[in-house]
C-alpha cells in the first residue's frame, strides 16, 4: 500500500487529470455557482475580485476533528472556494492527492494520536509528493506553534494560529496566492530539479528588489547548493547576513562551507547557531551530520539527543539518532526510540521499511535474535514490494548471523541479492552491503557500496549512508572517505573517457564504454544522458541502426521519467531530429 501512493502520485504529476476537469465543470454550472455567490454577498465584506481568485483553486483540508472540518468547510465556501476536499486523516489525504493537484493544502498540526501535521509535511516534501508551488498552511494552536516553527527544515508556507477569523484567513490566502503566482516559474523548475533554471529565474526576479527579494535570495542560494556551486551560495548567504543574521542564512552558510571542505568553520558556525537559537532544529541535524562524518559519532548522537529534548523528532532525525546509537554501541537506546516511534506511527505512511531494519539490527546487536526476526516478520506485512523485500531479507540475514545460524543468514542474503542491483534504491543497496559485512563478505560489500555511490552521484544523503556502513563495519574514517572519493573519481573518469573517445571520433568504443556504465548505473543521469547522446551522434554519422536507436530511446525515456527537464535531452533530441531528415 505504502509504495502505491508514491507510484500513483508520481504518475499524476506528469499526466493530465480528466477527473478533475469533470468535477470542475460540475461545480461551475447551475445552482452551485448561484448559491456560492449569494453566500458571499451575504457575508458582505469580501471583494468580488476575491471570489474569482478563490473559485478556481483546489483546496484540501486535513483535520481529524469533525467540528473543525465542518467549520472550515463553511468558512471556505463562504470565502468563495468551490473546489474543496475535506478529509479527516493522512491516509485519506494521500488518496485524494493521488488523483488531484491541489493549489492549497490546509492541515491541522495535531491529527490525533499518531503522525502529526509537521511529520506529514516532512513526508510529502522528502518524497516529492507535492509541488513546491502548492501552498501548505499549518493550522496550529499556540502551544504547538513552536514545535512547528522549530522544525523549520520543512517549513509550511504559513501558519494559522487558532482561533482565526474568516477575514484574517482570506487576507492571508490572498497574499499566499499572490506569492504562488510570483514564484510559479521558479517552483516549476525546482519541481523538475532543474537548478540552473531555478537560478536563472531567480536572477530575472531579483533586480526588482521587491518584497520577495530575501526569499528569492534564499531560493537561489539553495539552488546553487543543489547545483554544486557552494562558493556562490556562500557569497549569497553572506550578502543576506550582511542585512540581518537570519537563522536559515547562517545555517546555509555553514552548509556551503562544509561543501567547500571548510569543515571546522562549518562546525563552529553550527555550534554558534545552536547556542544562539536553541529552537532552530535544523542546525542540530546539520551539526550531528558533520560530527558523524568526521568520525565523532558519540558527539553526533549527543547533539541529536539534545535536539530531541527540545522538540519531538522529525522522522529523519529519529532515523539518524537510532542508526548512530547502534553504531556507537548503544543498541538499547536505538531499540527504545525506534519502538516508540513505530508504535506511535502504526499504520502511518511516514514509516519506512528501513525503520524496521534499524530496530531489528538494534535487537540483533543485543543478541535478541528472535525479537529481531519477529520485527522483520511484522514489517513484511506492511512492506511487500520487491525493494522492501531486499531490505528485509538483508536485515533477516543480520539477525540469523547474530543467532549463529550462518546457513540461514547466507540464504537470506542470497534472497536479498536476487534482483537487479541497478534498479534498487541506494538505501536497499547499503542495507545489503551491511549484511555482507556481517557475514565477512567484504569484497561484495565494497562492490555494492561503490555501486551506490556511482549510481547516485552528488547525493549527500547516500554518501553519508555509505560512510556509515563502512565505519560501522570497522573502517577508519579516512579509509571510508578515500573509498567514497575513489568511487566518485572512477565514474567521472569513465564518463570523461567516453566523451573524449566520441570527440576523437572513436564512436564504437565510446558507445560501448558509456552503455555498459549506463546499464549498470541507470540512476546516474549524466552517464545515461551521455550514452544516449553518443549513440545519437553515431547514428547521425553512420546512418540508422534500429537496434541502437531503440537503445538510445530507452535511455532517453528513462531520463524523461526521472527528470523531464534534463538539459541534455535537448541535445539528444536535436541529433535524433537530424536522423529523421
Amino acid at each position, binding site marked *: 500500500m505504502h509504495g502505491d501512493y508514491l507510484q500513483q502520485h508520481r504518475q499524476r504529476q506528469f499526466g493530465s487529470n480528466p477527473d478533475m476537469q469533470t468535477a470542475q465543470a460540475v461545480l461551475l454550472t447551475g445552482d452551485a455557482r448561484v448559491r456560492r455567490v449569494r453566500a458571499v454577498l451575504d457575508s458582505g465584506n469580501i471583494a468580488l475580485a476575491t471570489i474569482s481568485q478563490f473559485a478556481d483553486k483546489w483546496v484540501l483540508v486535513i483535520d481529524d476533528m469533525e467540528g473543525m472540518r465542518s*467549520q472550515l468547510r463553511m468558512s471556505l465556501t463562504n470565502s468563495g472556494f468551490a473546489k474543496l476536499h475535506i478529509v479527516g486523516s493522512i491516509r485519506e489525504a494521500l488518496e485524494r492527492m493521488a488523483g488531484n493537484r491541489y493549489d492549497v493544502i490546509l492541515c491541522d498540526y495535531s491529527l490525533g494520536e499518531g503522525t502529526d501535521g509537521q511529520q506529514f509535511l516532512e513526508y510529502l516534501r522528502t518524497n516529492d509528493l507535492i509541488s513546491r508551488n502548492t501552498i501548505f498552511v499549518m493550522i496550529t494552536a*499556540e502551544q504547538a506553534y513552536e514545535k512547528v516553527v522549530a522544525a*523549520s527544515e520543512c517549513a509550511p508556507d504559513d501558519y494559522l494560529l487558532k482561533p482565526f477569523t474568516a477575514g*484574517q484567513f482570506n487576507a492571508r490566502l490572498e497574499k499566499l496566492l499572490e506569492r504562488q503566482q510570483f514564484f510559479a516559474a521558479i517552483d516549476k523548475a525546482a519541481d523538475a530539479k532543474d537548478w540552473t533554471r531555478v537560478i536563472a529565474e531567480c536572477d530575472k526576479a531579483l533586480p526588482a*528588489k521587491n518584497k520577495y527579494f530575501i526569499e528569492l535570495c534564499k531560493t537561489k542560494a539553495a539552488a546553487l547548493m543543489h547545483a554544486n556551486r557552494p562558493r556562490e551560495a556562500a557569497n549569497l548567504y553572506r550578502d543576506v547576513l550582511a542585512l540581518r543574521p537570519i537563522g*536559515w542564512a547562517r545555517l546555509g552558510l555553514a552548509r556551503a562551507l562544509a561543501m567547500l571542505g571548510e569543515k571546522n568553520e562549518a562546525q563552529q558556525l553550527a555550534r554558534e547557531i545552536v547556542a544562539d537559537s536553541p529552537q532552530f532544529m535544523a542546525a542540530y541535524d546539520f551539526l550531528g551530520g558533520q560530527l558523524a562524518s568526521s568520525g565523532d559519532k558519540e558527539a553526533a548522537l549527543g547533539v541529536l539527543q539534545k535536539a530531541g529534548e527540545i522538540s519531538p523528532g522529525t522522522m529523519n532525525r529519529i532515523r539518524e539518532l537510532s542508526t548512530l546509537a547502534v553504531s556507537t554501541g548503544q543498541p538499547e537506546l536505538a531499540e527504545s526510540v525506534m519502538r516508540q516511534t513505530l508504535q506511535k506511527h502504526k499504520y502511518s505512511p511516514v514509516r519506512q521499511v528501513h525503520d524496521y531494519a534499524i530496530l531489528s539490527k538494534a535487537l540483533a546487536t543485543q543478541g535478541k535474535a528472535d525479537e529481531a526476526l519477529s520485527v522483520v516478520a511484522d514489517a513484511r506485512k506492511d512492506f511487500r514490494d520487491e525493494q522492501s523485500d531486499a531490505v528485509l531479507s538483508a536485515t533477516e540475514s543480520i539477525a540469523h548471523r547474530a543467532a549463529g545460524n550462518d546457513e540461514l543468514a547466507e540464504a537470506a542474503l542470497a534472497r536479498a541479492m536476487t534482483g537487479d542491483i541497478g534498479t534498487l534504491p541506494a538505501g536497499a543497496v547499503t542495507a545489503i552491503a551491511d549484511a555482507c559485512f556481517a557475514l565477512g563478505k567484504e569484497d561484495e560489500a565494497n562492490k555494492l557500496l561503490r555501486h551506490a555511490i556511482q549510481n547516485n552521484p552528488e547525493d549527500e544523503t547516500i554518501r553519508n549512508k555509505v560512510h556509515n556502513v563502512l565505519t560501522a563495519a570497522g573502517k577508519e574514517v579516512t579509509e571510508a572517505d578515500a573509498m567514497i572519493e575513489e568511487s566518485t573519481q572512477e565514474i567521472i573518469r569513465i564518463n570523461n573517457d567516453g566523451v573524449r573517445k566520441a570527440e576523437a571520433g572513436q564512436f564504437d568504443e565510446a558507445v560501448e564504454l558509456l552503455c555498459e556504465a549506463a546499464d549498470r548505473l541507470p540512476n546516474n543521469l549524466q552517464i545515461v544522458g551521455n550514452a544516449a547522446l553518443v549513440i545519437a551522434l553515431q547514428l547521425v554519422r553512420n546512418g540508422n541502426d534500429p537496434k541502437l536507436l531503440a537503445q538510445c530511446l530507452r535511455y532517453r525515456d528513462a531520463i524523461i521519467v526521472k527528470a523531464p527537464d534534463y538539459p541534455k535531452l535537448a541535445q539528444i533530441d536535436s541529433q535524433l531530429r537530424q536522423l529523421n531528415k
Partner: protein
Amino acid sequence: MNDLHAAVIHDVKNQLAELALRLGERGDAQQEMVIAMDAARRLSEMLLVIRQEAELLSVNPDSVDTADFLAILAAEYRELFPSLEFDIDTAQAPAFAFFDDALVRLALSNAVHNACRSARTGVRLAAREQDGMLVLEVADDGPGYPDDMLANMGDMPASASARGTGLGLYLARKIAELHRLEGRRGRIALSNDKGAVFRMFLP
C-alpha cells in the same frame, strides 16, 4: 501555573474559538462572536505569558513585508469591528523588515483590539523607520490611555482587575524585548495624541 492548568486553558480557549466561529456563521450574533473571540485571544496571551516566563519563547526573525503584515492584521479586525475605518500607512516603511511574524502579530493583535474598542471612528496602522529601528504603530481616535497605564508601560499587571489589557501589553513588551540586534533590543511605548498611540520599536 503547571502543565495541567495550561492544558485546561488551552482547551477552553479552543472551545471559545469554536464558539466564536459558530456565532460568526450565524450572521446575527456579531457582538457575541467578538466577545468569544476576545476571550479566546486573552487565553492565548495567557498561555504565551506562561511560556515566556518559563523562557520557552524564542524569536525567529525573518523577512516580513510590513504592508502585507498590516493588511492581514487590519482584515481580521475590520471583520470584528465593521463600523470602524482602517487606515494603513507604510509610505515610510523600510524596504526590508525583519522580525518574528507570528509573535509580533500576536503582540500587535492586542494593541489593535484595544484600539478598536476605544476608537470613535477609526484605527490607523503604520510602519516606518526611525533611528535605525522599525516602528510599528497602532493609533486610535478614542479617549487615550489612562494615566496609570502610561506610567507603568507594560509592567506585569498588579491586580486582576487591571489584567484586561495589562497582560496583553506586558506580553507585547516581552515579545518586543526578545528582538535583539547588535546590542539593541526592542521596546514598546504608549502615548496619547488625539487618542491612544501604541508603538513597538524593533531593532
